[in-house]
C-alpha cells in the first residue's frame, strides 16, 4: 500500500515536471498493468481542480485588488504636466544664469504684485543673478523696520542685502481679501511643493486655453486651466506676448517668459543646485582616483602571490620498477 502510494506520487510529480511525454508513458504503463486503471481519471480530476483553484484565486484577487479605484475624476486630478527637456535638470548642467536674470525680471514685474518670495534674501542674488551694486540698489528701494530706538519707537530704514524680499500683502488674510478669497501662494519653494515641479509651473502658466471646452463647469471668478487640479483656478492668465521688455533683447514671448520665470523659481527653491552638482562631480573625481589607486596597490601587493610558480619536484629515483 505504502509502496503503491509512493509510486503514484512520484509518477504524479514526474507528470507535473514535463507533461506530455510522461502522460503518454503513464497511459502506456497503466494500460499494460491494469491494476491502476482508475488513476488517470482521478489524476485528471485532481489536475483540473487544482488548475481551476489556481485560475479562480487569480481571478478573485484581480476582482478584489485589480482595478484601481480613483477617488477623483480626471478633471479633478488635473491634466498631468507635459515633460519639457529642461537643460538645468541634467546631471552636469548648471542653471542658465542669463535665464535666471530674465526670470527674476519677470517675477519682479509680473508675479510680485500678488505672490511673495519671502524666503529669498537680497544677498542670495549677489553673484548669481545681480551684481552687488544692483542688489544693494534693489534692497534700498524698500523700507524695513529698524530695531527700537532709545524711546522704543520702531522706525523705517532702507533695505540691506541681509533683508528678505518684501511680501505684497501684510498677511494671508489681506492677500485673500484682495484676491477674491483666493490666496496666492508664496513662490519660494513652489517648484518643490508641486507635483511635476518645473513642468507643472510652465504648463500652468502657458496652458490657459482661449476658451474652456464645451460643457466645462467653470465657477464664478475662476478661470479654466487644465493643469490645475479641479481645472478652476483663481489666477487669470497673466503672461502675454511682449509683456516684459528683456534687457538682453530676447523676444519676450509667453513661453519664453514662462520658461525663464520657471527656471528662476527653481533657483529660488534650490539655490544650492549648482554647488550640489559641483560637489557630486568632486565626489566622482575623488572616488575614481581612489579606486584606480586601490587597483594599482592591489596589483602591487598581490604581485608575489600571482607571479609565484609552484613546481613539483619529484624525488630522484632510478627508472626501474620498485620492488616490494
Amino acid at each position, binding site marked *: 500500500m505504502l509502496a503503491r502510494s509512493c509510486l503514484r506520487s512520484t509518477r504524479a510529480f514526474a507528470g507535473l515536471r514535463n507533461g506530455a511525454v510522461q502522460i503518454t508513458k503513464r497511459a502506456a504503463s497503466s494500460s499494460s498493468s491494469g491494476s491502476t486503471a482508475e488513476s488517470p481519471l482521478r489524476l485528471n480530476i485532481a489536475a483540473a481542480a487544482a488548475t481551476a483553484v489556481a485560475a479562480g484565486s487569480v481571478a478573485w484577487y484581480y476582482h478584489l485588488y485589480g482595478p484601481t479605484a480613483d477617488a477623483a475624476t480626471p*478633471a479633478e486630478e488635473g491634466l498631468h504636466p507635459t515633460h519639457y527637456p529642461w537643460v538645468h535638470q541634467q546631471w552636469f548642467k548648471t542653471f542658465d544664469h542669463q535665464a535666471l536674470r530674465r526670470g527674476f525680471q519677470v517675477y519682479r514685474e509680473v508675479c510680485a504684485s500678488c505672490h511673495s518670495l519671502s524666503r529669498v534674501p537680497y544677498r542670495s542674488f549677489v553673484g548669481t543673478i545681480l551684481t552687488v551694486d544692483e542688489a544693494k540698489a534693489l534692497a534700498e528701494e524698500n523700507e524695513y523696520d529698524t530695531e527700537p530706538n532709545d524711546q522704543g519707537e520702531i522706525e523705517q530704514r532702507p533695505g540691506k542685502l541681509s533683508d528678505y524680499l518684501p511680501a505684497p500683502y501684510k498677511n494671508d488674510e489681506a492677500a485673500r481679501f484682495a484676491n477674491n478669497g483666493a490666496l496666492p501662494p508664496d513662490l519660494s519653494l513652489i517648484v518643490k511643493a508641486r507635483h511635476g515641479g518645473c513642468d507643472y509651473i510652465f504648463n500652468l502658466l502657458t496652458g490657459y486655453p482661449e476658451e474652456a471646452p464645451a460643457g466645462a463647469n467653470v465657477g464664478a471668478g475662476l478661470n479654466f486651466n487644465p493643469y490645475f487640479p479641479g481645472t478652476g483656478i483663481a489666477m487669470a492668465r497673466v503672461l502675454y506676448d511682449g509683456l516684459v521688455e528683456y534687457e538682453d533683447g530676447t523676444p519676450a*514671448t509667453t*513661453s*519664453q517668459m514662462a520658461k525663464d520665470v520657471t527656471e528662476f523659481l527653481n533657483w529660488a527653491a534650490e539655490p544650492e543646485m549648482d554647488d550640489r552638482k559641483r560637489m557630486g562631480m568632486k565626489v566622482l573625481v575623488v572616488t575614481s582616483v581612489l579606486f584606480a589607486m586601490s587597483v594599482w596597490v592591489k596589483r602591487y601587493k598581490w604581485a608575489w602571490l600571482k607571479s609565484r610558480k609552484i613546481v613539483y619536484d619529484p624525488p630522484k629515483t632510478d627508472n626501474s620498477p620498485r620492488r616490494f
Partner: protein
Amino acid sequence: MGFWDTITDLVEAATPWATADAEAPAQELPEETTAESTKEEASTEAETAAAAEEPAAEEEEPAAEEQEEEEEEEEEEEEEEEPVDPKEQLEEDCRNSKQCSPAKHHFDECVERVTAAESSEGGAKEDCVEEFFHLAHCATECAAPKLWSILK
C-alpha cells in the same frame, strides 16, 4: 621683473586651474540707460499724441476718422513689433497632425454633441474636459522638443 612676469603669465595661461574673472562692469549702468530710453520713448509718444491731437482740435469732424485710422495703423505696427509665441503655432500643427488625429476627432465630436445638447434640451449632461485633456496632452507632448529648440 618683466622676465618673471612673462613666465608667470605663461604658467597661468597653461594651468588648467586658471581662474576666469568676470568682465569689468560697463561705465554706463544699464538701469540708467533703460530709464533714459523709457523716458525718451515716453516723450516721443507724448509728442506724437500731441501732434495727433492738434489737427483734431482744428477740424474735428473730418479729422476724427483719419485719427482713428492712424491709431489703427500704429496699433498694427506695435503688434507687428511684438514677438509671436511659437508655442501656439507648434501645438496647432501638432493638433492637426496625424499623431493626434484620434484625440482631435473625439474632441470635435464631443464638442458637437455637447453644444447640440445644450441648445436643444437645455443643459448637457456631460462635458468635454477629458477629451480636451487627451488632445492637449498629445499636442503639448508633440510640441515640447520643438518648442525647446526654439526658446532661448
